[in-house]
């Protein structure tokens, strides 16, 4: 029995036991359901082994939505705990675990897969390609992300949650102060999903550089594809830093090194440096695709071409460069001296310039446009003022001397939620709604969508604007309670109300999906929004080969040219199409890495070694495998085209 004691949770709580029961019941229900409806074969053939970028994109999006609810539940728990002074809903330890989980889940397992999911689905379509450059690698990326996410998500029922914050600062994250295996989970969950993300980065750079439709020069790519390209370049350069940081952290906790210790030559501040050298580019990895999505949506629903295309691209490139030179602003108070702080203060403020350019470009795109206030457009319009507030408070935080007042207060929490929610989350919701008919062939109900939008915006303002005030008054972040005499009570109650409204918004969004599956009309056509770019030029929903004939384009708005300037997109005749085969290897390798990570977390070395050998055997097997893909014959393509309503011009 001694062996199994390590799996016990260190800080038991009735809520955790309830979750255990729920997890077991849901798992049994899923397995039973799949078996009863005989869906295992379908699941394996059509989804788990797929190498189709569209299906992988959808799997990313489903995972992201599930994780959104997991992270959202954590957020509501925190707001309940802080809603009034001396609340006893969560204790200090449990609160630590909840805010850590909330941060990690929302950044790594919600925002990242959401962004990458949309990229997966849309980028190959926007550039007129049939798939990504390395379809099997793409599947592996997804399954590694998924393995990492699952590893992180089981931590709170097996062995204990990480409790040192999503930034995981040492020495707090060391064995001395965080004794459960929670932080080990953090290290391996992020390591495994991080490797997946790195491979996505490589895959998409090659895809965008080498698989564009004839005529699509770099400066004729749609803005979302541009944002995806820049994002993936940041991924390739930023993620290896995280890899090393996590490796060193693992060594410190499990092999007794002293990299981030306070004695023996170690330096605890070095973790913070490494983490943010990756971490600040990471926030631009999230926001740049969001900017790309807004650019597409604002241009479509204003019925105008995007104002300042070149300056949009240039400002994104500039932001990506600057993002690597600002990391110290996360710890101005650590004492690196006035000169260093000043330099990083200035580089940080400089980011406001390219971002400001983009804001004006969006505004000028709408200027004199025929604006249609659909749900995606509403989110985009709300984004502009709200994100500007977030940006301005960001410049406030960038002032190193003033930061001594803001540091580690709720002011900071308000700031970054003010950029991430209107910036990233609204973009994801807008993008999901906008591209939903592309993926599934029907439009999400607009009326429910608008209700959800208003709940979201009002809830957001109520939840986060009060934190600016309590933060300036000195309410520290990550404190599980406060006394009545601080006077923070009423404003925190307001935040709680706002969080409630946001929760309703997300429930409405989920309900909207169910409602629209049942009730939305299916005959929306191939171009329901009167859009401008290439992804709308094919059938709806998209056949597996995307385009029967490779399109030829001569501007960033190929479909608009086709509609307004009678540009012929599809020249030539239908030929056989080469497609990649399905493969079970990616999911098997990810499963092995899951076992590897889990065993490593608990230092079960024999299992670690076996899993490592199995993993490399899979690589070796892949190397010797002869897989040249398959061809869809011209007749078959013609048949499919007929079924989808005739070949495209």
């Amino acid at each position: 029995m001694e062996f199994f004691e390590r799996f016990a949770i260190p800080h038991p709580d009735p809520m955790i036991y309830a979750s255990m029961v729920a997890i077991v019941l849901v798992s049994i229900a899923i397995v039973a359901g799949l078996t009863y409806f005989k869906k295992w074969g379908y699941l394996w053939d059509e989804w788990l082994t797929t190498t189709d970028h569209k299906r992988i994109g959808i799997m990313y999006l489903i995972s992201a939505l599930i994780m959104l609810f997991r992270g959202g539940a954590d957020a509501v728990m925190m707001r309940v705990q802080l809603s009034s002074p001396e609340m006893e809903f969560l204790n200090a330890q449990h609160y630590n675990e909840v805010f850590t989980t909330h941060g990690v889940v929302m950044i790594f397992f919600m925002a990242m897969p959401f962004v990458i999911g949309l990229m997966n689905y849309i980028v190959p379509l926007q550039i007129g390609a049939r798939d990504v450059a390395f379809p099997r690698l793409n599947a592996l990326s997804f399954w590694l992300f998924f393995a990492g996410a699952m590893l992180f998500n089981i931590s709170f029922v097996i062995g204990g949650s990480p409790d040192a914050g999503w930034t995981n600062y040492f020495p707090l994250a060391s064995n001395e102060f965080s004794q459960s295996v929670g932080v080990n989970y953090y290290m391996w969950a992020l390591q495994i999903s991080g490797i997946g993300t790195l491979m996505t980065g490589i895959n998409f750079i090659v895809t965008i550089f080498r698989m564009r439709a004839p005529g699509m020069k770099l400066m004729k790519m749609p803005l979302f594809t541009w944002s995806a390209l820049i994002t993936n370049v940041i991924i390739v350069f930023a993620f290896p830093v995280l890899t090393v940081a996590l490796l060193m952290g693992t060594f410190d906790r499990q092999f007794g090194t002293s990299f981030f210790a306070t004695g023996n030559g170690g330096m605890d501040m070095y973790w913070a440096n490494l983490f943010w050298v990756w971490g600040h580019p990471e926030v631009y990895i999230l926001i740049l695709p969001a900017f790309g999505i807004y650019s597409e949506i604002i241009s479509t629903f204003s019925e105008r071409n995007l104002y300042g295309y070149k300056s949009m691209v240039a400002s994104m490139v500039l932001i990506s460069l600057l993002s690597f030179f600002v990391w110290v602003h996360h710890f101005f108070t650590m004492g690196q001296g006035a000169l260093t702080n000043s330099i990083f203060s200035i580089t940080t403020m400089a980011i406001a310039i390219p971002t400001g350019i983009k804001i004006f470009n969006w505004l000028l795109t709408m200027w004199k446009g025929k604006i249609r206030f659909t749900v995606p457009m509403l989110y985009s319009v709300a984004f502009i003022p709200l994100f500007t507030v977030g940006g301005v408070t960001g410049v406030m935080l960038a002032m190193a001397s003033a930061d001594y007042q803001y540091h580690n207060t709720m002011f900071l929490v308000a700031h970054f939620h003010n950029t991430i929610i209107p910036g990233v989350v609204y973009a994801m919701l807008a993008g999901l709604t906008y591209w939903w008919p592309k993926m599934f062939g029907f439009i999400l109900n607009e009326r429910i969508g608008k209700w959800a939008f208003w709940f979201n915006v009002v809830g957001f303002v109520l939840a986060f604007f009060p934190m600016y005030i309590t933060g300036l008054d000195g309410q520290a972040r990550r404190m599980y309670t406060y006394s009545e005499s601080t006077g923070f009570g009423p404003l925190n109650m307001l935040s709680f109300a706002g969080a409630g409204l946001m929760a309703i918004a997300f429930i409405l969004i989920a309900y909207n999906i169910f409602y629209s599956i049942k009730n939305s009309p299916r005959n929306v056509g191939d171009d329901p929004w009167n859009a401008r770019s290439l992804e709308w030029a094919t059938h709806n929903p998209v056949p597996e080969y995307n385009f029967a004939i490779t399109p030829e384009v001569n501007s960033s708005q190929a479909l608009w040219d086709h509609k307004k300037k009678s540009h012929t997109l599809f020249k030539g005749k239908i030929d056989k199409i080469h497609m990649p085969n399905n493969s079970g290897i990616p999911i098997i390798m990810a499963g092995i890495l899951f076992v590897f990570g889990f065993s490593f977390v608990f230092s079960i070395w024999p299992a670690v070694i076996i899993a490592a050998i199995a993993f490399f055997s899979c690589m070796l097997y892949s190397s010797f495998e002869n897989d040249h893909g398959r061809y869809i014959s011209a007749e078959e393509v013609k048949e499919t085209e007929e079924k989808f309503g005739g070949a495209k011009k």
Partner: protein
Amino acid sequence: MKIDHSQPLEYSTHKNEMNILGFWIFLGAEIMLFATLFTSYFIYENRVGNGPSGAEIFEITPVLIETVVLLTSSFTIGLAINAMRLNRPKAMLWFLGITLILGATFLSVEIYEFVHYYHVGATLQTSAFTGILLTTLGTHGAHVTFGLFWGIAIFLQIKKHGLTPETANKSFNYSLYWHFLDVMWIFIFSFIYLKGMM
């Protein structure tokens, strides 16, 4: 699969060309990985705690052997690719084989070196300096180990299938990888060993 005969075999298909570009980008990520390790090394270089410093534990002989062996292997993999371009699979396999033997030699000397560090009391746990030293060297060594297995797999595939667009493509990427490890070793030799011994 369209084959473009005006290009060398490893570049002859669109897929091959994408593989090589992808591999270059992967090497870019690897450079970031090693750059982070080197930065960490420089930060911890003098933070020796109660443990030994670099000057006290570095031995020039094994390091020189490792350097000569690895540099030679970088030359022989270059010869292998040259033989591949001349379409002489037999010569290529010989040079690839020599490369792998040299790689294995390098690895054995490095293992000896690690045992030596262990005996003079410089382990992962001794100090932050010894920790980062062994982590940096170990990461390089792990890459070489992986490269050995990968090289053997390619050797067997060429033996079985001859020089095809696929095997040529794999060999070319492999040679990039091997050269890259060599470049990293030059940095390790200069900025870890030489600097440490001065």
